[in-house]
């Protein structure tokens, strides 16, 4: 969350003459930061892969030919074809040069374009994460809001149980339980797979259950606190209806807390996707990254790591934009500065 703090504060302020200049300055700085991230992540990743145990050519050959047919002969042919006996620094330079021209290269194992493969996997993962997030937000905030309406009430206590239970269950176990219930016993949803519309329901639900508990908790605490605040009581005193108070004062203020929290959770969610993808045979980024590391598919590892790093930057930007849209205070602060 530290990389991107300034930009949204400067956005959407055409009235202030220096706004454009400020935005340009911040964006310039951000671009430099992103370039730095790319350089550091690429080099670090490359160094780590080179230092992993095992002969890279043999690993790539195992990925290409499978365990029945990986032999010294196939490894030698891979080594010659890919120029793996070149000096390491030369290989790194090749990769960086490719990067400058936005060329991620081809997979060492499948031979397909890394950008194409990564795009497919990234899209699948994002689709799954987004579905889980929407589901978790709807369920979590609804339950949280209802619980906050009567702190200490039955629903509030049930929510506490739900939060603990949902967090205590590892996603892998939860996924298995959901498959047993909805696929094996009820037979209404597919157990695993990809490609049909209803394939996403169970993996998304598995991820959403854990998240929704957290969202419910955060929503409930924030709302309960805001309901007690002076401005809410003042709004009620001046005669605003329950709905208006809820929408204008409670929801909006809860949003500020919740959005920041969602930002952090989305990154955790991307990690959680790896386990769930493997259980449900979902061809996402986690799947691609695990295979790439196992096979020492260097361009694929580099590109996946870069995509994850840049996703952090993008996510932070989005969170800040959303916060700025909901909460006007920072913009005024910027004006003072």
């Amino acid at each position, binding site marked *: 969350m530290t990389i991107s703090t300034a930009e949204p504060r400067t956005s959407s302020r055409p009235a202030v003459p220096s706004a454009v200049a400020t935005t340009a300055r911040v964006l310039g700085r951000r671009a430099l930061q992103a370039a730095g991230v790319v350089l550091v992540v690429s080099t670090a990743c490359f160094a780590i892969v080179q230092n992993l145990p095992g002969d890279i050519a043999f*690993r790539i050959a195992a990925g290409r030919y499978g365990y029945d047919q990986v032999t010294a002969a196939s490894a030698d042919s891979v080594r010659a074809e890919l120029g793996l006996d070149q000096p390491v620094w030369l290989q790194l330079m090749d990769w960086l040069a490719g990067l400058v021209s936005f060329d991620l290269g081809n997979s060492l194992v499948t031979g397909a374009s890394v950008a194409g493969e990564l795009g497919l996997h990234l899209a699948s993962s994002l689709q799954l994460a987004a579905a889980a997030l929407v589901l978790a937000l709807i369920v979590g905030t609804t339950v949280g809001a209802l619980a906050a309406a009567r702190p200490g009430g039955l629903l509030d206590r049930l929510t506490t149980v739900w939060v603990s239970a949902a967090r205590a269950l590892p996603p892998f176990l939860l996924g298995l339980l959901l498959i047993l219930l909805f696929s094996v016993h009820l037979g209404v949803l*597919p157990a695993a797979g*990809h*490609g049909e519309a209803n394939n996403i329901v169970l993996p998304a639900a598995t991820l959403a259950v854990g998240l929704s508990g957290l969202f419910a908790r955060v929503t409930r605490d924030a709302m309960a606190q805001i309901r007690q605040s002076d401005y809410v009581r003042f709004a009620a005193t001046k005669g605003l*209806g329950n709905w208006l108070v809820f929408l204008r004062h409670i929801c909006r203020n809860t949003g500020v807390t919740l959005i920041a929290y969602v930002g952090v959770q989305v990154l955790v969610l991307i990690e959680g996707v790896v386990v769930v993808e493997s*259980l449900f045979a979902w061809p996402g980024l986690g799947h691609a990254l695990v295979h790439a590391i196992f096979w020492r598919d260097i361009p694929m590892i580099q590109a996946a790591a870069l995509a994850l790093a840049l996703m952090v930057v993008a996510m932070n930007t989005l969170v800040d934009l959303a916060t700025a849209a909901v909460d006007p205070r920072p913009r005024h602060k910027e004006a003072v500065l």
Partner: protein
Amino acid sequence: MGWQKMRVAGASAVALLMIAGCAAGGNDAPAVTQPLRVVGQFEFHSLDPSTAGGFFTRLQVAETLVDADVQGVLQPGLAESWSASADGLSWTFALRPDALFHDGTAVTAEVAAAALTTAQGKAGTPLATVPLKAISAEGNAVRVELAEPFAPLPAVLAHTSTQILAPSSYGPDQAVTKVVGSGPYQVSHIEPPAKVELAAFEQWHGEKPDISEVTYQAVGRAESRALMAESGQADVTFGMDPSSLQKIRQAGKLDIAAVTLPRSILLKANSGHEILGDVQVRRALSLALDRESMATALLRDPEMAATQLFPPSLPDWHQASAKPLEHDPAAARKLLADAGWAPGSDGILERDGRKFTVTLRTFPDRPELPILATAIQAKLKELGIAVDVKVGNSSEIPAGHKDGSLELALYSRNYALVPDALVTLTDDFAPEGGDYGSMGWNDPALTSALHDLASGNDAGKAAESRGKVTDILQAQLPVIPVAWYRQSAVVSPRVDGVTLDPLERSWRLSDLAWKK
């Protein structure tokens, strides 16, 4: 009032979501119009015949010149017939005249010769090891010239890396960009690495398959595959782990098809090693293994305990008369004591100050390998042998073989990748050793027996030569057999006619039928 509305709205939203989820999945009532859903562990990462494994031949999309039946007997494939010249140096494979690729073009001798020439250039494929001189088209036949006689050539041309694809399969640089084969099924949609959809090929010359649409989905985890089978989401499920299979068998709702594969799990020993080079030590290791208990407890299949290297599913090579490998810890102790090994203060065997500690490498791609490795570790510990089990990548076995650092390795070996096991054995037990065979060991009698078989000079003595090979391997133990292998598939009640191919060449989908 506002809160009540909120509650109602919230509850409706949740209910709606659940209904939407259920409704979307509620339409899988059995109907013959649906595709046959096949689920397995195999992903495909490349379309190239040399690296895609047998994937597209298993799905019957692509064909090879020569086919094989479930007994491993060679059958006509794209080639109707084949013959060799008297000196065994020139072979002719006459193509089936009516064969068409899925793009409508004819399968010509030129196309087949070009595909084989490409296959020959790929390292690590069986064709690359054949003493080839030239491959050419001659009328409607493919002519193969050899530098020296090689009797198993037709079997090599049944290997999946020699599949014949249409010219339209290749993009620039001869890279395979799509699979246009000539089999009974054609690819209608492909989503690497996990999903393929097939449709029956209308112009297929043979009998029209009863099942006209097939989807294949690769699923990495065995428990997920088992749940897909149990929930009816899969019609034919491959790659079941032993415990899931046992559970499904007990539930009794699904059929299970099984076949013993020509595949063995074996322990490769570095015979050039200062300790393992002693044949008495290798025999002691073999006697220490309780194969029956391992097969019963870990593979849940006592019959899979190996008594010799070749399973009964390789009838030409399996010797019913061979003295079975036994479990006899007392005899093992005696052999080790005779070889000069005595227990040290910590219970580990020692000789001239050198402790009996060895490293065993294996890999997790076949889930039973790591657990078998730890069982072997426990058994050898009882004798005072300290085994360090390293579970890593499969490639560490050929890599360790190459740099000489390998001591013990546990893996499974398929002896019928080429329908004639001779091709694999010649590689594995070459005098200089083989990545998945002997290491630092050679036996002139075995080499000459294999050479006689390959040259095909004395067909009358073939059985005798094969017997000799089995006997030598059983006595010398350059690789120590551990277990054989049974392949199982779980079959849904709506499908009929599943027979498994022990050669794992084809899933024979075109022979399946919907249950009437």
